């Protein structure tokens, strides 16, 4: 229990004896919700852009005959069209969702279905405009978050596991798998898996996303010849951008599930008002 707190945060006990902890400062809360909206717009407009050429390649250029991944539609033996995802030499029938989906009652050839793209219609120009405007919001919001986090100590507190957490890594994994969530003093800090996950997402995936996106820009590539090379070429950067988007979606799904099972009301209150309940002390001493 001797978690040396990285920084002091306000705490209070209400009339009913419940302990409250000011978990999320306002800058973090704002950055979190802006990020949520921005990432959703970027994902859906990104799928719109992907639909314009629904194939991925490795290297500097497109090897049109041999894509790493392709989402297409083709005519089956019975004459009806079906949606097909091809990864390397493997093909999967994805009719209804990928490659071929229903739009207004008719089947249309499009890689990602209209409910997943922004705009809903096939419209590359508007998709690009949404994407590039919100990419700026992502970068600015991310910069504010990182600078604030760095100077306030929040980033270290949130992302870097404490010494005792690393020593008890196995125990923490077990607690997590059993969906047992700490209360009291221990709930003031993220557990080691949370910290490492946020570390990878905040300092790994999101910056990689931005850099891989920039590596697709002929203008930025002219200024920084090294940038596409960092990913193994422009088409590799596009593929990595796509994979990183998939990993972010995976992260968000797990994140939302864990928010639900670890106490939706308390978590939401924490991210909306800052105040997070640590439970009642008698419960804590009983542990």
């Amino acid at each position, binding site marked *: 229990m001797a978690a040396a707190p990285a920084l002091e945060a306000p705490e209070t006990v209400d009339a009913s004896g419940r302990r409250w902890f000011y978990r999320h400062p306002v800058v973090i809360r704002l950055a979190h919700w802006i990020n949520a909206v921005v990432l959703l717009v970027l994902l859906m407009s990104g799928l719109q852009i992907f639909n*314009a050429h629904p194939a991925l390649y490795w290297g500097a250029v497109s090897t049109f005959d041999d894509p790493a991944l392709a989402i297409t539609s083709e005519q089956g033996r019975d004459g009806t069209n079906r949606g097909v995802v091809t990864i390397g030499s493997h093909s999967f029938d994805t009719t209804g969702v990928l490659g071929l989906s229903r739009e207004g009652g008719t089947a249309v050839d499009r890689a990602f279905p209209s409910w997943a793209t922004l705009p809903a219609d096939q419209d590359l120009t*508007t998709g690009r*405009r949404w994407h590039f*405007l919100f990419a700026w919001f992502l970068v600015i919001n991310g910069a504010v978050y990182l600078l604030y986090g760095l100077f306030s100590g929040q980033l270290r507190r949130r992302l870097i596991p404490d010494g005792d957490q690393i020593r008890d890594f196995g125990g923490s994994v077990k607690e997590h798998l059993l969906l047992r969530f700490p209360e009291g003093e221990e709930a003031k800090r993220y557990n080691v898996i949370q910290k490492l996950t946020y570390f990878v997402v905040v300092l790994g995936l999101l910056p990689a996303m931005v850099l891989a996106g*920039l590596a697709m820009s002929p203008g930025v590539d*002219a200024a920084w010849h090294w940038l596409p090379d960092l990913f193994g070429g422009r*088409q590799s950067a596009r593929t990595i951008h796509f994979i990183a988007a998939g990993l972010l979606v995976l992260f968000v799904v797990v994140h939302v599930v864990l928010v639900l099972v670890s106490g939706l009301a308390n978590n939401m209150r924490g991210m909306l008002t800052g105040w997070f309940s640590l439970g009642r002390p008698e419960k804590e001493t009983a542990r």
Partner: protein
Amino acid sequence: MTLHRRKLLTVGAGLAGTALLGGCDRFAGTETGRRTLKVGEDANLYVQRLLMSPTTLAREFPAAMISPWFKPNGTIDPPDREFRALAAKKFADFKLTIDGLVQTPLSLSLADLRGLPGRTQVTRHDCVEGWSCIGQWSGVPLAELLNRAGLKPQARYAVFHCADTLEYAGGGLEGGDGASLWRPEHPGHVRDGTIQLAAAEDWGGASTATDAPKDDWGQGAPEPDAPEDKRTPIRYYESIDLFDAFNPQTILAYDLNGKPLPVSNGAPLRLRVERQLGYKQAKYVMRVELVESLAGFGQGGGGYWEDRGYEWYAGI
């Protein structure tokens, strides 16, 4: 359709954010929405220009990396009668015109152009759709031509007039009501219209329908038998500013991979402006016009695709 889409969205995502995204499409369709979304383009132009100098070059690749097949797209075989006549004689009668805000307008044949100092570069071509090809381009640096013509001080943009007609502006004259039919309410509408027209086998129209000089790239090539159709053809065009026009890699290319440029890739001349996306690399360039403003060309966007919503600055 809209109702159904909204229903699909609501059911499909089941998120609070869904209501927001349904609103996104309506927002993007308004004038305010379009202007707001354009802020990203302005920011990209500003920041990318900070990262570059006028002479910053795009990466050049070793010959071994040249793509075996350079994917042609957009127009691959212009239907225009004048162009077909030129192509039939292997562009022997072709003349590139350089005019507008210049001291000395130029008219140069392919042989003239090949006689000028040239540049060869192996560069990556990035399509707005997402794919890339590497090709070797040889041609005349645009700066070479602009220096010979001599720019007037008001000149700010180079406009590239191309031979290929993509659609017709209703029945009206350029700038009239007919043209505004194609102003995008929804970008989707325009693209549908383009496809229908392209499929209509109604080619053969030429610039005879209008005496607007903006459209008259064909210097002195009289229309053999003027078609009864008086509609104004909308041809491909593009524009760049002087920052890109004087870049050493900005060339009018006559060769691709060491051979004369095929028609599918833009013969006789294709603009290469290597720090931008594929749709800026205008094919079938007939005339370069130096201008002070892009207003008055097409719908004022600075290019065929720009008039249909794409960014004028295609550096990303």
